[in-house]
């Protein structure tokens, strides 16, 4: 008998814990189990870093690739798994310690959050395209149900919209997978990549288009992201933090992983994806200017950052990719912070409209301070980590003598500054509107996860070299098509 660590644990352990939910309900330990599971997986992922950096781990399930399903843990996958587990730990810690609403501490929420993270891990790890579809559905169904968790009008409306849009996206993805199988007779992504060039060009285009529509809807890219703000507005902010921090990142990874692997020459899709990213970024930032509701504003701001990440990843140079991966980390941390702040504000104020939040800094000084910090990090001001990642991206573009993205990114940052400062000015306004519904004082325990994130933002901003090697290697792994194909297929 042997007993060894494998990537399967990132999926199997959360599944086991979720299936055993009645046990945790009986012992009244739902939230501790949720938190410690995420934290343990986070610790496990970090402890694995030295091993994975030497050589990627390839875990075969039942039958060796290209026949069977396998999990592929390389540096970039590990980066995302670590990030997701961390986000899960922060959000569940916040729900547990911070006295969130009862429906977020119940059995359904436990199962759904646990499996949302497990599904995202699976999407990043799996090396089989149909298995990818199954994980997309796991993530999808838990996200639909989470959106409706509060069970009032707005939550159900958000959930329904999400479910309809999401299942249509899943159909397009499934269609593309079916066509791929019928054309090549393969399901393993690496084997598909070898066979993809033999498919007639028109068919390649069709498959690519179907995939792009499906994944574009899920990853919230421009023409397909009309639904996002409604859902972000309708769900609980704790859940929205997971959408923005985990879900979108997992789909972005899948989109670019498939692009880089399937296409022998990623420059084919480069201009299209870059244009998509640029339009997403500019349109979202412009719309965010006009938003009167904090959660809608954050949703559009999130879309803008997704556009920026897409723009940088699509360029596919090592420098911009590393910068984009760093920005993925930063954006997850920042949006976790902002949405959890929104959750705290929603407990004290009746609504999150701009007009109702005037003078917030007096009643919630820590929250207002953290909001300022997060806003500065989004804008990319030193010494916060957003500065470093944006700098890497800009350096990558200028090294390649491509200047239009730089101009667009700077314009987007200016627009961002415009609306974030409008909110900050409102928070620090001298007059206060009296819409507070309750005041249970500022419990420091509520802020513990938030202060941790804020600390991380500063630490990563001051010492980006902590992550630099890992990120560079991750960028190489994401772009290294041949290395991956050889590792899987031999």
């Amino acid at each position, binding site marked *: 008998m042997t007993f060894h660590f494998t990537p399967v644990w990132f999926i199997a352990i959360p599944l086991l814990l979720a299936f055993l939910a009645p046990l945790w309900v009986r012992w009244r330990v739902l939230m501790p189990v949720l938190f410690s599971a995420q934290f343990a997986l986070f610790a496990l992922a970090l402890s694995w870093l030295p091993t994975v950096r030497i050589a990627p781990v390839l875990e075969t399930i039942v039958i060796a690739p290209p026949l069977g399903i396998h999990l592929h843990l390389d540096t970039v996958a590990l980066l995302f798994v670590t990030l997701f587990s961390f986000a899960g730990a922060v959000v569940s810690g916040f729900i547990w310690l911070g006295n969130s609403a009862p429906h977020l501490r119940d059995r359904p929420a436990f199962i759904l959050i646990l499996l949302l993270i497990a599904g995202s891990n699976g999407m990043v790890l799996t090396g089989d395209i149909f298995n990818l579809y199954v994980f997309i559905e796991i993530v999808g169904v838990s996200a639909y149900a989470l959106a*409706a968790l509060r069970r009032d009008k707005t939550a159900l409306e958000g*959930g329904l919209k999400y479910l309809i849009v999401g*299942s249509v996206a899943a159909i397009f993805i*499934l269609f593309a997978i079916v066509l791929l199988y019928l054309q090549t007779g393969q399901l393993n992504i690496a084997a598909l990549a070898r066979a993809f060039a033999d498919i007639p060009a028109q068919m390649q285009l069709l498959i690519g288009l179907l995939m792009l529509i499906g994944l574009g809807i899920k990853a919230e890219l421009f023409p397909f992201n009309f639904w996002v703000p*409604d859902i972000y507005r309708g769900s609980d902010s704790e859940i929205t933090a997971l959408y923005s921090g985990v879900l979108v990142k997992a789909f972005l990874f899948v989109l670019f992983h498939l692009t880089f692997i399937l296409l022998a020459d990623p420059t084919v899709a480069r201009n299209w994806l870059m244009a998509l990213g640029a339009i997403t970024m500019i349109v979202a930032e412009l719309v965010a200017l006009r938003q009167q509701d904090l959660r809608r504003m954050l949703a559009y701001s999130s879309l803008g950052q997704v556009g920026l990440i897409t723009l940088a990843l699509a360029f596919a140079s090592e420098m911009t990719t590393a910068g984009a991966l760093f920005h993925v980390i930063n954006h997850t941390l920042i949006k976790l912070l902002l949405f959890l702040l929104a959750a705290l504000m929603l407990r004290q104020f009746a609504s999150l409209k701009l007009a109702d939040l005037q003078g917030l800094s007096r009643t919630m000084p820590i929250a207002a301070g953290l909001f300022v910090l997060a806003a500065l990090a989004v804008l990319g001001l030193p010494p916060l980590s957003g500065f470093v990642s944006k700098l890497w991206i800009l350096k990558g573009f200028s090294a390649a003598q491509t200047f239009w993205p730089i101009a667009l990114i700077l314009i987007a940052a200016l627009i961002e500054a415009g609306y974030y400062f409008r909110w900050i000015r409102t928070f620090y306004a001298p007059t206060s509107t009296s819409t507070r519904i309750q005041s249970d004082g500022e419990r420091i325990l509520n802020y513990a996860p938030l202060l941790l994130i804020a600390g991380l933002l500063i630490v990563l901003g001051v010492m980006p070299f902590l992550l630099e090697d890992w990120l560079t290697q991750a960028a190489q792994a994401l772009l290294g098509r041949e290395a991956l194909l050889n590792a899987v297929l031999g």
Partner: protein
Amino acid sequence: MLNFLDTPAVLHSIYLIGSLILFFIGLYGLLAKRHLLKIFVSIEIMELAVYLILIAIATTSGETAPILSDGLTAFTGMSDPIPQALTLTAIVIGVAVTALGTSMAIQYHRLTGKVSVTEMTELKD
């Protein structure tokens, strides 16, 4: 006289065209209908069309089911088992999503009395 219908090319064309028509009926319903349940039905039709394409194109006439029984002793001349397994998986997933969707629609109707997507304006500003 109708033997030519049994050639794979003709059969596959019929299946393909039929499934595609189904797919676009579903797409039309999705875009044109406003009732929540009709939208779920449309989504189901689209899913079904995709399953049909997978199953129909991957099987040629004359192949048997990939199961040893009735005197069959070797796995030869059988249809590809993968599309069938994939379809089974996809059907179960589709059912799960639809069950969740209809439950949400029922609950939403009970709370608001609305059944149409155009009336869902709670979240707009």
